[in-house]
């Protein structure tokens, strides 16, 4: 979806100024209170806000379960950065391991992650998408042995034992490994 234009932004800001508490009515009928920031980050929600004249306090969201929405709210509570999200273009721009958002999803089950991925795809939230699909997987891979990557990533190897042995032989420790001075 195209980025919100400046005129849309001003309408969105005036619309958001009028209300204090925004509630979403989820799939299971429960209400979830969300911050204005989540609305700004989601292309779908911000677009809705920028086109309607009168803002209602409760917005129906019949496609997302309340538990998933609560997880999204919890994630945004963790992240303090309030600036507009710019996807990292360089290796050095990526969030570090200490970033609270990186470890947030690591204990989630596959089903939960699937539901979250669908939800952030539906709401079109680039920051959340990057954290779930990118930084979390980077966290799984980084500084780990090959076996661990396979286990945590739930992947099966298609290398034959001979191929793997060949690889190991090629990567075998050389005659001498010394610590640089």
């Amino acid at each position, binding site marked *: 979806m195209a980025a919100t234009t400046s005129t849309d932004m001003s309408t969105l800001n005036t619309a958001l100024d009028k209300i204090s508490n925004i509630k979403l009515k989820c799939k299971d009928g429960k209400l979830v209170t969300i911050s204005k920031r989540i609305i700004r980050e989601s292309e779908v929600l911000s677009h809705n806000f920028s086109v309607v004249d009168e803002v209602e306090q409760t917005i129906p969201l019949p496609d997302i379960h309340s538990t998933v929405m609560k997880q999204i709210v919890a994630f945004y509570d963790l992240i303090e950065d309030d600036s507009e999200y710019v996807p990292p273009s360089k290796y050095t721009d990526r969030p570090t391991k200490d970033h609270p958002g990186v470890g947030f999803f690591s204990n989630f089950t596959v089903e939960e992650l699937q539901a979250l991925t669908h939800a952030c795809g539906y709401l079109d939230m680039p920051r959340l998408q990057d954290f779930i*699909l*990118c930084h979390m997987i980077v966290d799984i891979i980084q500084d*780990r042995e090959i076996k661990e990557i396979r286990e945590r990533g739930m*992947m099966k190897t*298609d290398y034959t034992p001979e191929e793997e042995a060949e690889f190991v032989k*090629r990567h075998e420790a*050389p*005659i001498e490994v010394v610590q640089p001075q």
Partner: protein
Amino acid sequence: MNTTRTSRVNGPPRTRKLTSYWKSAQPNLSDKGLPPEVVLQIFTFLDRVDIDNCRLVNHRWLNIIDKNTHLLRQRFIRMLKVVDNGNNMITISASSRTKCIKYNLNMEINNHIDADMIKRLANLLKGSLIKRTVICNLTLTELWVYDLYTIFNRANVKFARFEMIGVAIDQLTRDSFQNFIGEKVAAKVYFLDGIRNGDADFFNSRLLEKTNIVNAEDFTVYDVSSLAGEEVILDLGDEALLDFFFGRNITSKRRTTLYLDSPAVSQSFVYSALVRFVHETNYESMMQHAEFTHIREQIIHSHRAITNEYDTDIQSEWSSKNAKTDLVLEVKVTRASEDDELVHDNFITVTMDICNGRTMC
């Protein structure tokens, strides 16, 4: 109906077992998962060590990584050394920020790197950027040049600084030496010092026409000695050297310094440089600074474009201004004073600098 037929148009061939046929028809497990674009995006956030680990996870990841090496992080090697320690022992070592890997090769049996070691070294250096490469004290042979090129080529490495120190080149032909540094090893900075058993022919004008030398930011040749241990005069000539300095037919815009020891130039080299500079147009590709040591005494004729800044026994300076731009070529000719016993009698150094005329005023 012909019952002896072994295959049908539709369905599995009769001779093969059904189970194996359907197994092979099933999509490969490793095809499942995130789309390759997403996986590649994830890999761009990883360190080289982690990328190497991922290559071993499954074939799909291996393919994605190997096809897109240029988009991913390169291995950074601080220093690659090939050093002849004497007694037929050659050490090849590569050090990164975290570790240093060293191979000791015994050259007693065959004076080249064996195929297995080439494979290993190429694998070690794969896709890396080498900040500094030093080849030291080695006697380069055709086989060595070929082996080194094979390793660098297979590993697809990039060089920043390439140094050859105390390397003997008498077992190479002129062409293979010039091709090796001029075409096969593409570095930004070349530093050749103390080349042994050389010949004036190795450093002739054709070397300065090689692609990599032409595009190098910095090119240095110091102290080339012959088989008899005498100093070698580099067979370059005024015209070739000035073409190189002024960047004739050169498009690279990042050329900074040129240091040459004992180039065979005439007495009017500085004079021709000053006169030629006035009408040069390719000023973006000119070397910014050049130093020539051990050259002949220079004679500067009077010319309306040349200004003599000062003239003493020890140092003289001339300058000339480019007609189109505001650039000024400053040439300093320094002679070693007679009292200085440490220095050779006719030790003359020429320093050429191109600077902006306005800032100078």
